[in-house]
C-alpha cells in the first residue's frame, strides 16, 4: 500500500512513470509476433472471464436506469444515469472499478438485442479494461467486438487505444500498422511519442495547435519521454504562455496549464538536480509534508552532497524518516530512487522533494 502522492509535483512525477512504462509482455523479436499470434492471444484472453470476475459482487445504486438511453434526460444525476454514474462514482474510485466493469457486462447481457446500445456498452467496456484495469488483452477484444478495427477512420480515437493495446501486448509492428490507418489526432501523436517516434509525434501534435494547450502539452510530453528536457521545457512554457481570460477561464486550459507547470517543476527538480553541477554551499528549500512545509538545508561540497538536514518542520509522526531519508540521499548522492520510510511516506517524500528543489535552484 503506497501513499498516493499528494502534491502536484509528485503527481507529475508519477504521470511520467506511467508514461514511460514499457510494454508488459515483450515477445522475442523486436516488432512482436505475427498477426495470427495476436488474434489467438486476444481471443483466448477475451473469451475467458478475468480471475476476479466471479468473486466481485454486482453492486450499483438501485435507482440506476439500466436501459441506458443514448441521451440522458433531465439534470445531471449520477444515481440514475449509467454514464454519469460511471463518470462521477466508478472512475474516481479504484475500489469500484471491478464492480463497474461487472455492471457493464451485466448491461451487455440485458441489452444484447439492441445494436446501438450493444456497441456503446462494448466500447465502454474496452475503455474501462484499458484505462482502469490495464487489461490490454480484454480491452483489445472488446474494441474489436465493437468493430473498431474494421473502421479505424470512423473510430479514430478508439483505434489509437486499440493500437496501444497491441503495443502493450508486445506486438509493436501490428500497432504501427494499425496506426498508419488512423488519421492524425493528439492521442495518435501521444502514442507515437510512447513508441519512440518523437519527431513524428511533435510534428503531428503541432500540426494544428489548439487554443487550450493540448498540442504543446502533447509535444512537451513526447520530448520529456525521450529525455529531451530543454525542448520539453520549451513546449510546456508555450502552454503557460497562452493567455487566460480574466473572467470565466476555460477549465481545460486551466488544467493544462497546471499540468504544464507541474511538469516544468518536476523536470527542473528531478532531471536537473545533479549535485555535480552545483557550486559549493548550503541551500535551503521546502516541500509540503504531512502537517506543513518541511524545510531542508543541503550542503554541497566539491560536487558532493555533504549533508541533508531538516531545518524546520511541523510533522507529528515521522518514525525514522527524519534521519533515514537524509542518510539515504547522502549515501546515494542522488534524489532519485530513494525508498521512503514506511508509514512516514509523505514526510520522506517531502524531504526528497525539498532536497531536489534546493539542488535545482542552486544551479540557476
Amino acid at each position, binding site marked *: *500500500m503506497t*501513499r*498516493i502522492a*499528494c502534491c502536484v509535483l509528485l503527481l507529475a512525477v508519477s504521470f511520467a512513470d506511467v508514461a514511460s512504462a514499457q510494454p508488459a509482455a515483450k515477445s522475442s523479436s523486436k516488432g512482436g509476433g505475427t498477426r495470427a499470434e495476436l488474434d489467438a492471444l486476444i481471443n483466448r484472453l477475451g*473469451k475467458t*472471464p478475468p480471475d476476479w*470476475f*466471479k468473486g466481485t459482487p*454486482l*453492486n*450499483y445504486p*438501485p435507482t440506476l436506469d439500466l436501459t441506458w438511453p443514448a*441521451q*440522458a434526460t433531465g439534470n*445531471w444525476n*449520477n444515481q440514475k444515469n449509467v*454514464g*454519469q454514474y460511471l*463518470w*462521477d*462514482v466508478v*472512475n*474516481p*474510485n479504484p*475500489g*469500484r472499478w471491478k464492480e463497474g466493469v*461487472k455492471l457493464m*457486462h*451485466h448491461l*451487455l*447481457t440485458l441489452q*444484447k438485442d439492441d445494436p446501438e446500445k450493444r456497441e456503446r456498452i462494448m466500447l465502454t467496456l474496452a475503455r474501462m479494461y484499458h484505462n482502469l484495469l490495464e487489461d490490454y488483452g480484454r480491452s483489445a477484444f472488446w474494441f474489436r*467486438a465493437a468493430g473498431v478495427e474494421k473502421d479505424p477512420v470512423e473510430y479514430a480515437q478508439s483505434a489509437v487505444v486499440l493500437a496501444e493495446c497491441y503495443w502493450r501486448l508486445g506486438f509493436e509492428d501490428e500497432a504501427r500498422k494499425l496506426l498508419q490507418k488512423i488519421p492524425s489526432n493528439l492521442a495518435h501523436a501521444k502514442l507515437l511519442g510512447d513508441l519512440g517516434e518523437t519527431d513524428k509525434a511533435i510534428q503531428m501534435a503541432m500540426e494544428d495547435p489548439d487554443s487550450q494547450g493540448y498540442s504543446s502539452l502533447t509535444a512537451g510530453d513526447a520530448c520529456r519521454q525521450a529525455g529531451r528536457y530543454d525542448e520539453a521545457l520549451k513546449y510546456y512554457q508555450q502552454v503557460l504562455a497562452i493567455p487566460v481570460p480574466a473572467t470565466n477561464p476555460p*477549465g*481545460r486550459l486551466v*488544467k493544462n496549464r497546471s499540468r504544464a507547470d507541474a511538469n516544468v517543476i518536476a523536470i527542473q527538480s528531478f532531471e536537473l538536480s545533479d549535485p555535480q553541477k552545483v557550486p559549493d554551499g548550503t541551500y535551503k528549500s521546502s516541500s*509540503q509534508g*504531512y*502537517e*506543513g*512545509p518541511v524545510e531542508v538545508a543541503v550542503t554541497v561540497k566539491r560536487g558532493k552532497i555533504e549533508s541533508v538536514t531538516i531545518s524546520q*518542520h*511541523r510533522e*507529528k*509522526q515521522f*518514525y*525514522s524518516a527524519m534521519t533515514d531519508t537524509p542518510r539515504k540521499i547522502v549515501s546515494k548522492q542522488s534524489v532519485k530512487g530513494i525508498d521512503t*520510510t*514506511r*508509514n*512516514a*511516506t509523505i514526510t520522506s517524500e517531502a524531504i526528497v522533494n525539498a532536497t531536489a528543489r534546493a539542488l535545482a535552484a542552486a544551479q540557476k
Partner: protein
Amino acid sequence: MRLDLFLPFLRKPKKGTEPRRPGTLARAARSIFPATWFADLSTGKPGLIRRTLKRMGPTWLSAPVRRVIQSVCLIGFLILFFVVCWPYSARPVPETEAWPSHYADNLAQKEWLPAESFLVIDPLVSLSTAIAAHSWVWSLSCAAAILFACVFIPRGFCGYLCPLGTLIDLFDWSIGARFTRFRVKDEGWWVHIKYYTLLATMIAAFCGVLISGFVAAIPVITRGLLFTLSPLQTGFARGWHLVPPMNAGHFVSIGLFFAVLALGFLKPRFWCRYVCPSGAVFSLGNLFRVSERKVEDTCINCNKCVEICPFDAIKPDFTTRTTDCTLCQTCGGVCPTQAIKFVDRWDGVQLKVLNDPPTHETAIGRRGFLATGVGLASGVAAGLGITGVTRVWGANLDDPDAWRPVRPPGSVPEREFLQMCIRCGECFKACPNDVLHPIGFQQGLDGIWTPHVVADWAGCESSCNACGQVCPTGAIRGLPLAEKKVCRIGLAEVNLQTCLPHAGREACQLCVDECHHAGYHAIEFTRVGTEVDTDGQPIEDSGFLAPVVLADKCVGCGLCQTRCYGINVADKKLLSSSAIVIRAGEGKEDRLMSGSYQALRDEEARQRQAREPQLEMPNDDDGYLPDFLK
C-alpha cells in the same frame, strides 16, 4: 512469627557476655562476602555496609531493606511511565501486507510488568470506580490481593510501595526540611482528615460521581508527572511543537500535585499521614492485621523511635498506633536495646507495661466526640456537595444537544465511562502523537481530566490499542487490535459548504488519501460540478473529485480531520476549521460494556443485506460473455 527486616542497632557487648549471634541470613551473607563488609560483633565496630548506610542517613541505616524497596518501586514506576508508556520507540514493520500492529506490539513487548501496575494496586482506584459504576471492575482483584498482603504487612503499601510516598520523602528531604517556619505541632484537628476524605469520595461514588481520582495516591502522582514532566520529555526528545496545548484542567491538576508536595512543609509526609484517602483504606484494613510492632520491657524510654517515626505512629508510651504504623521498621533499627520487634498480633512475650510514661489518652470525651462529629459531617457534606455541583454543572447526558466528546476506542457507554474513568492520565501517556487530550470543564465537573480525541491535533493510529491496555479500571476496554480496528469512536462528516472541492474552490484529496492509507477505505470520491458539453457529454477534468464518507466503513479515527486541519487550516490557511470533522453521538459510535465489536459489524452487515433489495444477478453462466460472441 517474626517479620524483622531492620538492621539492628550495633552495640558493644558488655564485658563477660557473649556477643549476640547473627541471624541465619546474616550468617549466610557473612560466609559469602568479605569480612570487612560486616561489623565486628565482639568490638562493636561497624563494617563497610554499615558505614556506607550511615553516610546515606539514619533511615537507610536502620531500615535499608525498606529504602531499597521504595527506591525500586519509584524507579519502576518512572520506567513504566516514561519508558513503557512512551510509544515512540515503535517502528513500522517494512513491507507487510497485513494490518499494521507496530504500536500495539511495541507496548506488549515492553510490558514485562503491566504499565498500570501501580494504579491497580491502589485500592481506592478500583473500590470507588466499582461503587460508582455499580459493576465489577477487573482491578478489584488486584486491590483485594494488596489488601490481603497488607494484613501481614499493615499499611505496607504506604511504607514500601507507594511511589507518591517515596516522591514525598524525596521532596521532604531535599526541600521540605530546609523550611521549618511552617511546621505544625504534633496533634491537631487535621490528624483524621484522611478518613473524612475517604468518606467524602465514597459518598460521592455511591451517588455515581467519581472524584476519588482527584485525591487517590497513584492517580495524583501519575497525573502530576503527566502534566509537568511528560511535556518536557516530548519537547526534548521529539520537538516542542509536539507538546499538546494546556487548558484550565491541566493547571488545576498541576496545582493539586504541588499542593500535595507542599504539605511536606507542615510536617514530613503530612499528606500520607493525615490526608491521603488511599492510605485511609489501608488504615481501616489495619484493623484486620495479623502482625504488628510490639515493644518489650527492655525499653529504656529513650524516645529515639518516636523521633524517627515518619508516620507519627508511636505513642508517648512507645507502643504503636496500629492504624498509622506502616511497618517500615525504621524504629527497630534505632532502638539501642533492641526492644522493638515485629511479630504476630497475639504475641505477648515480655511486653512493656502500657501507659508508662502516660499517654494522656482518654476515652473519647465531649471535645473528641464533637470533633469526630464535625469531621464526619463535613465528609458527608463534601461528598454530597460535590455530587450536587456535578449534577447541576455536569455532562447533561440526558440533553441530546449537550456537548459530546469523542472517546477513545473501546470506551464503555458515557454514563458508565464518567463513573469508571479514574482520571489517572495513563492513556494520554501511552497514546502516540497525543490524540487523547484531557477535557477541561466542557462537561462541567463531570468530565474533567477524562480523555477525548482531539482529531485536529492527531488521528487515532490504526496499529495502536494502547489506551485500553493501560486503563486501570476498564473505562476503556483493553481490546485486541482486531476488535479495535472495527470499533467506531465517531463518524467523519464532510462540511459541504467549506470542503474545498465540494465548494468548488480547488482540488483536494487529503482525507481520501489518508483514509486509504490507514486501510479503512471509508472515504471515496464523487465528482462534483461536472460540466457537460453541447452533446450532453461530460467534459473531461471538469468539476472536482470530492470526498464522500462511507458510514459503514468509517470508525472515526480522525486521521482525515488531522490532515485537513494540518494543511488546509494551519498551513495554507484556506479554512478556519477542518472541513471534515469526527462527531460522536447516538448511532455514530459503539459504546459497549462487553461483547465484540466485530460481531456488531457482522450483524449490521446482515441487516443491511436483508433490508436492501437483492440486485438481479445474471443467471446465464457467469454473465461475462453474451451469447452473440460465443
